[in-house]
């Protein structure tokens, strides 16, 4: 009872203040818009920023204006670049927020959205979709026809990711509970089996090897309005529900027992969070293939920068992940259309190393 009985200042309780949240999310939004303009204006074909702006104003806002641009330019801006940039943003947002959730769920800063089998399952699904038409020619027609505007590859990738996590989760489950280490090891084992199947399919893929490789490295070259329309609602729903669960995510950081003492139905919550994060991951992986490092680095860096409170961390991860991937994809396009996963790995991995070294030097890390 040493403390003076003065009314406590508001900051006493802690947590991100409204101003701080507004600054972080506001700057994230401004950055996102900047990257959007930049990424739509730049590409392998030079289109002036003035024409870019006019085309967007005309097509998006319906403002009538004299056509100073060629029809080709309009197609490039509106049908090629815009859906691709928006897809990059969606994928970046989905991976970064799913990474944030898995890092909290597994209480492991090295966790990424692919860890418990999403990547391996989606890869196998996608590669079956790519290779099967070559091995079984009767499937060619089926592969060509789009289903709800998306192809066989996307559907199989999405289903593969979800199914694998379902299998991993049910195997790891014992006595009504899922232990983190068991989950990780089960994910590793199942992923290894699927990776062997992927390698086998790659070996027999022949001419499709390039397509398989591009998928495994992650690429947004195939992004289109239909694939965006498929993934956006899934990611939006998952993200919204995840952000609304910020409090439980914070509590799970205390450990299963302490979280239970604070009113969390731990096993149910883990299942729901895993399901939502996997839904977002599978949806975006279906669009882009497996793009690495975004889901690992973004939450990690942001946690150091703005703290671990998921109320702010989760939406910020989505925003900054979106900017990062759109920016990386711009680099990939300007570098001659290389898979964007190569760019994220080239930028992400050294950055991560630097970060690890810094964290080690920093006091009481």
């Amino acid at each position, binding site marked *: 009872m040493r403390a003076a009985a003065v009314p406590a200042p508001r900051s006493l309780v802690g947590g991100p203040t409204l101003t701080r949240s507004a600054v972080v999310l506001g700057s994230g939004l401004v950055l996102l818009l900047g990257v959007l303009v930049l990424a739509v204006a730049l*590409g392998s074909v030079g289109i002036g920023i003035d024409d870019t702006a006019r085309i967007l104003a005309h097509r998006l806002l319906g403002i009538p204006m004299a056509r100073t641009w*060629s029809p*080709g330019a309009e197609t*490039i801006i509106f049908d090629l670049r815009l859906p691709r940039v928006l897809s990059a943003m969606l994928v970046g947002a989905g991976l970064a927020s799913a990474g944030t959730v898995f890092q909290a769920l597994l209480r492991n800063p090295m966790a990424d959205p692919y860890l418990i089998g999403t990547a391996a399952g989606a890869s196998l699904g996608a590669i079956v979709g790519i290779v099967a038409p070559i091995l079984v020619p009767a499937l*060619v027609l089926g592969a060509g026809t789009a289903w709800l505007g998306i192809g066989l590859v996307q559907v199989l990738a999405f289903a593969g990711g979800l199914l694998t996590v379902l299998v991993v989760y049910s195997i790891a489950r014992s006595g009504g509970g899922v232990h983190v280490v068991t989950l990780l090891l089960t994910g590793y084992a199942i992923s290894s089996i699927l990776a062997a199947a992927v390698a086998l399919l790659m070996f*027999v893929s022949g001419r499709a090897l*390039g397509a398989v490789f591009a998928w495994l490295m992650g690429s947004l070259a*195939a992004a289109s309005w239909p694939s965006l329309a498929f993934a956006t609602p899934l990611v939006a729903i998952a993200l919204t529900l995840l952000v609304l669960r910020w409090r439980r995510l914070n509590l799970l950081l205390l450990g299963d027992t302490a979280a239970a003492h604070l009113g969390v139905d731990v096993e149910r919550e883990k299942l729901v969070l895993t399901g939502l994060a996997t839904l977002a991951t599978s949806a975006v992986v279906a669009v882009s293939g497996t793009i690495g490092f975004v889901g690992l680095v973004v939450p990690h860096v942001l946690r150091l920068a703005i703290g671990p409170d998921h109320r702010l961390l989760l939406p910020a991860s989505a925003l900054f992940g979106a900017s990062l991937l759109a920016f990386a994809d711009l680099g990939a396009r300007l570098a*001659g259309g290389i898979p964007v996963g190569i760019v994220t790995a080239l930028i992400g991995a050294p950055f991560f190393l630097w970060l690890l070294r810094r964290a080690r030097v920093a006091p009481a890390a």
Partner: protein
Amino acid sequence: MLAACQAAPLATATPSPSASATPKPSASATPAAAYPLTVTDDAGRAVTIAAEPTKIVSLAPSNTEVVCALDACDRLVGVTDFDDYPPQVKDVPKVVVQAVPDVEKIVAAEPSLVLAAGNQQTPQAVLDRLESLGIPLLVLYPQTLDGVYADIELVGRAIGVSERAATLTGEMRQRADAVAQAVAGAARPRVFYEVSVYQGVIYGAGTDSFLASMIELAGGEPVTGDATGVIQLENLVSADPQLILLGDAAYDASITAKSVAARPGWDGIAAVKDAAVKPMPDDLIITRPGPRIVDGLEALARAIHPESFE
């Protein structure tokens, strides 16, 4: 080299595409094609062309050669960075770099017709994308010499030069017939055409591949691998080719009869024992299914039956 590697999944799914592509061999009678016209390409797709295409993008060197052989070289507004023939195409903008088609550049060229390549050489994603943008697109994927004729006539019809196409394929057929006559009656040696050997994985002609059909026409019995052209060394040894043609020697001077003889396990093959291992500097025209393919056939026949051409 590219077209030779693999068997024909696309064509298998759409039996005899070339037949529908050339419904009227006597098209030369009509001076100007009536647009819009609908043609069927090698992927079995029905493609409607609204007006005579004035801007053509070619996504494969063989397609480029077809267009130029039809005297339409000046209509090309986009080619690949592999394109080397005829020499003037080197000045045409490159829309395929390092085998990656740049969709933005293709669209920016505002083509009225795109000639793509089959069997994933033009990736399915790119085909889908161009199709969704409403750009008229023909997939050319000839499986045999007859397929090459059919494709030349298909392109001729599509771009309004059927007559020129008929003349060209007529000349090609004559020369091919001459080759057939020259090798007729001669003994047919077992021929292995080496596409590449890398890390111990041997690529030759695939089963039922274009390359295999060329070897047959040139008077040889092709030794083939699986559908993708991969052949295990022990299968190669047991097939015991009497002649080995080194297609890869055209690009890599270190591959010679001597280096082949030094490969472990190869010394038991008849061709190696009898010193019947020849580099094929003409690999490009043998494996590129364009209008020069008959030159390739002649080169192949000369290599297999030098005695017939003395």
